[in-house]
């Protein structure tokens, strides 16, 4: 039982990270029908920027976090502006290749500029484990779970109560109607990329104290986030949250009760299973639509 509780904590913690990354996939997919395979790089940028700012610029964490989020936001806008927007109207496969190219570029820049080592960010509230039942919980896990809860509520408010949020929803439901209503769909795209990048970065700097961070951490986390998003139906931010938590729990249980060697295989198995159930591919529907 204690063992189970321990796996549960671990699963929820990593699941929350996948959820944050997955929400980013969902928001960009909704606004533009692009599957942004550079999403994982925003996670890396968030963690690496926070490390770099605290260690090299000597700023406290409380200042480093918003700065790291801003840097990721700018990277997201740049990705849309310089890589995705110029390919407007291209096929989905082309766009996927473009985002993969952009991710290789971003990874390379960080590798050269900062280095190949593992970097650690100090935990937000120390490293003293909290005992619950017979299991322990890292205080950083509480930050991660709490942040996910706040993000979900904030997104709900954004999409249901604010003008830009509703405009983004309208654009995803029917882009033509949005244009005819005078909504600047270009701005919607930029907002979606900035928002997704910041959510990814948030995941990256939240997880850095536990898992460490390095220039290529985005490959795996991007894939897990993608898995969370497709489990949730690809176009739904809330679905991605459920998908992320499910994936995290499945991984933790697999790692705990079977073998940690198989842990990372869970996401691959899920992606393959989804592709198998939908043989036309995830991109079948998106393929007929324009960006």
């Amino acid at each position, binding site marked *: 039982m204690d063992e189970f509780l321990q796996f549960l904590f671990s699963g929820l913690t990593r699941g929350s990270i996948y959820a944050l990354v997955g929400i980013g996939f969902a928001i960009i997919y909704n606004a533009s029908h692009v599957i942004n395979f550079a999403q994982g790089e925003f996670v890396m940028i968030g963690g690496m920027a926070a490390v770099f700012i605290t260690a090299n610029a000597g700023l406290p964490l409380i200042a480093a976090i918003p700065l790291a989020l801003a840097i990721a936001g700018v990277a997201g806008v740049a990705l849309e502006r310089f890589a995705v927007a110029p390919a407007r109207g291209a096929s989905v496969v082309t766009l996927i290749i473009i985002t993969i190219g952009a991710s290789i570029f971003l990874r390379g820049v960080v590798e050269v500029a900062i280095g190949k080592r593992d970097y650690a960010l100090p935990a937000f509230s120390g490293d003293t484990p909290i005992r619950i039942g017979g299991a322990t919980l890292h205080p950083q896990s509480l930050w991660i779970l709490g942040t996910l809860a706040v993000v979900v509520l904030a997104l709900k408010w954004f999409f249901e109560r604010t003008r830009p949020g509703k*405009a983004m929803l309208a654009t995803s439901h029917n882009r033509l109607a949005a244009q005819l*209503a005078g909504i600047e769909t270009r701005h919607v795209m930029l907002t979606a990329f900035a928002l997704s990048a910041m959510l990814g970065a948030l995941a990256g700097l939240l997880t850095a104290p536990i898992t460490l961070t390095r220039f290529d951490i985005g490959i795996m986390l991007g894939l897990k986030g993608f898995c969370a998003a497709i489990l949730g139906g690809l176009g739904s931010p809330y679905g991605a949250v459920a998908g992320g938590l499910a994936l995290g729990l499945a991984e933790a249980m697999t790692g705990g009760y079977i073998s940690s060697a198989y842990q990372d295989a869970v996401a691959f198995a899920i992606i393959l299973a989804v592709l198998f159930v939908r043989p036309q591919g995830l991109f079948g529907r998106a393929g007929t639509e324009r960006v």
Partner: protein
Amino acid sequence: MKAGPPDMLLEVSGLVSRYGRIEALKGIDLAVAEGELLALVGGNGAGKTTLLRAISGVQPAEGRVRFAGEDISAMPAARRVRAGIAQVPEGRQVWGPMPVEDNLALGGYTRSAAEVAEGIERAYAMFPILKEKRRQPAGTLSGGQQQMLAIARALMSKPRLLLLDEPSMGLAPLLVQEIFATVKRLKAAGTTIFLVEQNASAALAIADRGYVMETGRITMQDSGPALLADERVKAAYLGI
């Protein structure tokens, strides 16, 4: 380029638009006067929708579009809405999962909060059924109700020119009558209307002037009653 008479609200000249190699508009010239109800009729695939899309700026086109005396050919779609052009697109295109009231509010995206509140009241006065269903997702409305919503949504931007693309499509005869009655009321209230229809008899009957379009070209133009009486129009579009 010849400048049209100053009271022309919309002037289109030499408009060409393509889908890949298909030329859907092959040089369209037309004009809509302020306060006029203009009908454009034509068969399947004539290019009517493409023309309206080009006027709204959501379809790339060559040639010139002038609105209220200003050349808007290079203006992005969102700014054309601000300038006063609204469109009710073919197939209604409501935001299905969003509540009726949100559909209306977003129709007034270019307007202030006060104007939006006012516009929603006007929409409810015009179509009371929308008020009844204000909290329901637009996708759950019937076809006729969705068409009313699409018209009300377009009016939220307070347009000077309203483009209507086949508003009667797929509706039962009684609803078709109601939609045409609405169009007449809008005209009476001073809105300039460009009505595209396959239902040629109903459209020409209420129109001041009409154009006939075939395979990307304007082939006839005259007053509404004159076109209704024309033998060729009767044969081709009225099934007489």
